[in-house]
């Protein structure tokens, strides 16, 4: 049935609509110009805020590391479990919800598209099985390619074209969406118990440096005409003084031709913006980083904002997790995924009264607020590394209200209060800006043309919040705002009303988007590759690719590459 959303205050930054009262018409899962009012279902959105469906660019919701995280944290499930209802399935998990619960919780907050970063290609089948099980949202996943041997070998040879063909092939067989690079070079070194400490360190056995890997893959990304830039987790992440490494990383990517589009997306930038010499002298490097980003257009980033809660950190950056293990002494999972990547998991509690955590909280917000252009910054917690995604409304309140920031700031450790730049920042994001950092900007950065906006032809993904922007000043009444954004009045995906006032009305399977990058000459799987697989992988090549039947609702996006 057709749908008509009447009289809502519409915020649609990609089409320049800022709080205008207008109607949105939906037919066949798409937004259309108009529908017949008599035959369609009408949602009265008078006095409500209408946003496009939310897009999350970076959230670990599926895959081997997420599942291992679930396994090692029974205490996380004990404190938060949901019983089944007539419509929804049961589930557990506070920081790492089980697959179905993940879908429901995202949908309740008005999200309709989520991106799972970091999938080890070897674990691609597992990841897709879990993605199939996440209802209510569309999703995609990024394979980890920064330390894959075939990439390193070809980049070391300087053969970008061959590397591009391998990357395209890999995206196809793992059903991935973007190139994810984690601590380039560091993960390969971690296999030998080492790490790289600057972007010019040598990677053992490969005669290559992180700088060459990043620039090389950025060029490859360009050659393949990928919709998203390279998705980059920097070197030296989570180490005091690492903002210099981050600056060098951004500078080295200047050499890649931009053609007006960002060449790299630096993810959870908060963890890469530490100044100071050690944990005792840790301060914020946000000022230097945002100065650079404000003056250059080739970088976008997401926040990785800290939430003060008990959570689980999980990343492919094995050496970083080892550092965290030494700091916390908590239970630790470590792994080295053959020729591809590494991984680690540690439960972690961020505390207000811990000066380091409190400064990290401040850094995340400083980064977002000091970046002038909201199209360059996206709101994430790097779920579940800095906090579960269910805390997004809290972050939005901090971004939109100085009062909300002050309420939390006053409870921080004194040392952190003295070192924070936050009291000097008066900026408060408007609803329009919030629509950019949670939806429009992320969709634009991901190159999803039918997501993140409400123009004609877009997917009918709409989030309607119980908030009257004419009556409520979100900067003052941040608690009302937070409540409204915790549970939508309506979440509509693909033209179906999925949730109403925080209640799930129906389950809808989301599709899995993947890229079919068409290169002029394809990688031939010859005896040489099969021999390598036999020697260095634990699986035979024939068992490696994710075949089409693995994806329940695939959505292939075909792209013509330049090579």
């Amino acid at each position, binding site marked *: 049935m057709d749908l008509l959303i009447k009289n809502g205050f519409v915020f649609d930054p990609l089409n320049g609509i800022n709080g205008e009262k207008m109607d949105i018409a939906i037919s066949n899962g798409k937004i259309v110009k108009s529908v017949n009012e008599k035959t369609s279902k009408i949602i009265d959105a008078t006095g409500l805020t209408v946003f496009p469906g939310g897009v999350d660019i970076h959230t670990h919701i599926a895959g081997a590391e997420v599942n291992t995280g679930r396994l*090692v*944290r*029974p*205490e996380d499930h*004990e404190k938060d479990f949901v019983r089944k209802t007539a419509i929804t399935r049961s589930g557990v998990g506070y920081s790492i919800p089980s697959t179905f619960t993940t879908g429901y919780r995202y949908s309740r907050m008005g999200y309709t598209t989520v991106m799972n970063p970091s999938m080890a290609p070897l674990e691609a089948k597992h990841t897709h099985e879990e993605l199939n099980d996440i209802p209510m949202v569309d999703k995609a996943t990024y394979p980890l390619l920064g330390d894959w041997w075939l990439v390193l070998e070809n980049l070391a040879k300087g053969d970008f074209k061959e590397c591009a063909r391998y990357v395209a092939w890999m995206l196809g067989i793992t059903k991935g969406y973007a190139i994810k690079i984690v601590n380039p070079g560091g993960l390969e070194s971690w296999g030998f118990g080492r790490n790289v400490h600057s972007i010019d360190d040598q990677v053992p056995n490969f005669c290559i440096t992180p700088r060459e890997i990043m620039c090389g893959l950025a060029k490859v990304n360009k050659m393949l005409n990928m919709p998203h830039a390279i998705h980059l987790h920097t070197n030296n992440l989570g180490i005091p003084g690492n903002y210099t490494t981050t600056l060098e990383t951004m500078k080295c990517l200047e050499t890649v031709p931009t053609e007006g589009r960002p060449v790299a997306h630096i993810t959870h930038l908060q963890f890469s913006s530490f100044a100071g010499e050690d944990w005792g002298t840790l301060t914020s490097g946000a000022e230097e980083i945002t100065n650079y980003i404000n003056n250059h257009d080739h970088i976008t980033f997401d926040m990785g904002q800290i939430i003060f809660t008990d959570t689980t950190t999980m990343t492919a950056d094995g050496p970083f997790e080892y550092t965290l293990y030494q700091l916390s002494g*908590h*239970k630790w999972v470590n792994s080295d995924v053959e020729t591809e990547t590494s991984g680690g998991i540690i439960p972690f509690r961020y505390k207000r009264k811990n000066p380091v955590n409190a400064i990290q909280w401040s850094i995340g917000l400083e980064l977002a607020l000091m970046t002038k252009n909201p199209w360059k910054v996206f709101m994430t917690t790097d779920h579940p590394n800095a906090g579960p995604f269910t805390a997004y409304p809290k972050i939005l309140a901090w971004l939109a209200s100085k009062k909300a920031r002050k309420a939390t700031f006053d409870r921080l450790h004194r040392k952190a209060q003295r070192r924070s730049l936050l009291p000097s920042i008066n900026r408060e994001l408007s609803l329009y800006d919030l629509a950019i950092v949670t939806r429009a900007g992320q969709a634009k950065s991901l190159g999803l043309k039918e997501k993140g906006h409400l123009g004609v032809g877009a997917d009918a993904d709409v989030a309607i919040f119980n908030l009257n922007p004419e009556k409520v000043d979100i900067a003052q009444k941040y608690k009302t705002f937070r409540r409204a954004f915790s549970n939508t009045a309506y979440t509509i995906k693909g033209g179906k009303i999925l949730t109403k006032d925080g209640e799930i009305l129906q389950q809808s399977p989301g599709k899995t988007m993947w890229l079919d990058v068409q290169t002029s000459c394809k990688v031939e799987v010859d005896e040489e590759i099969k021999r390598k697989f036999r020697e260095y992988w634990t699986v035979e090549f024939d068992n490696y690719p994710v075949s089409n039947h693995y994806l329940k609702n695939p959505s292939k996006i075909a792209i013509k590459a330049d090579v």
Partner: protein
Amino acid sequence: MIVLTPLKKYQYPIIAECITPDVFQGKTIDEISNLSVWEGNKEKKLCELFKIEKNSAKSPDITINGNVIKVKRIGWGMTQGEVVVNGNAGMHLGKKMSGGKIVVNGNTEGWTGSQMKGGLIEITGNAGDYLGSPYRGSTVGMRKGKIIVHGNVGSDAAIYMKSGVIKIHGNAGSFMGFRMTGGVIHVEKNAGTRLGACMTGGKIVVSGTLENIMPTFAIELIKGKVKIETGEKAVGPFYVFLGDLAETGKGKLFISKEKNPQLAQYERFL
């Protein structure tokens, strides 16, 4: 006082978080009868499983007469009042309680007094495994309060204990006081292996024999008496061991000298 009597011999586990003085307080018999409990995978009313009566006695607030070994989570999170169980009680008895008193005239199952923050639990029979220990995987152990067991205790008692007192008049199983950081445990009879493994603080007193001592504990001195709590001392003499040195811990084990002649070899290090 509310008196609960089981109506039948239970076949399935029952989750009854509602049986606490805090929930029952100020409620009529009807309201109490309608409280929700889970039997297996079915949601039921309390009156379908128990006969509920009220009498004029003031204390204790709740008495359970009969074997309720299948009933889990009695006294969950209670803050005041008194519960008496005349029979065996099920798992998670008095979990997360912060005040009040629970008396069990019988045995208890695992996780008795798990993550407790205050109050008193007294068990006249034996306690199961994980006495006063946190839920699996959690690092939040017993924070305060007191547990007295007149019988024996299973393994893994007092994991991650931070403060409070546990007194065991019988024997204790292995892995007692694993990763404890504070508090006092007194075992009047024998203790099992791996006593105080990875402990970094607190003290464990064993008045009986110890099966064996971890190699990561070093002898400190021989002491005549040790304080258990205000006004109570255990009389030795005791060998005092410091550890767990693998964790650079400062926990103390007090092991009876008289009952443990096999530890006499440590005396040469004094």
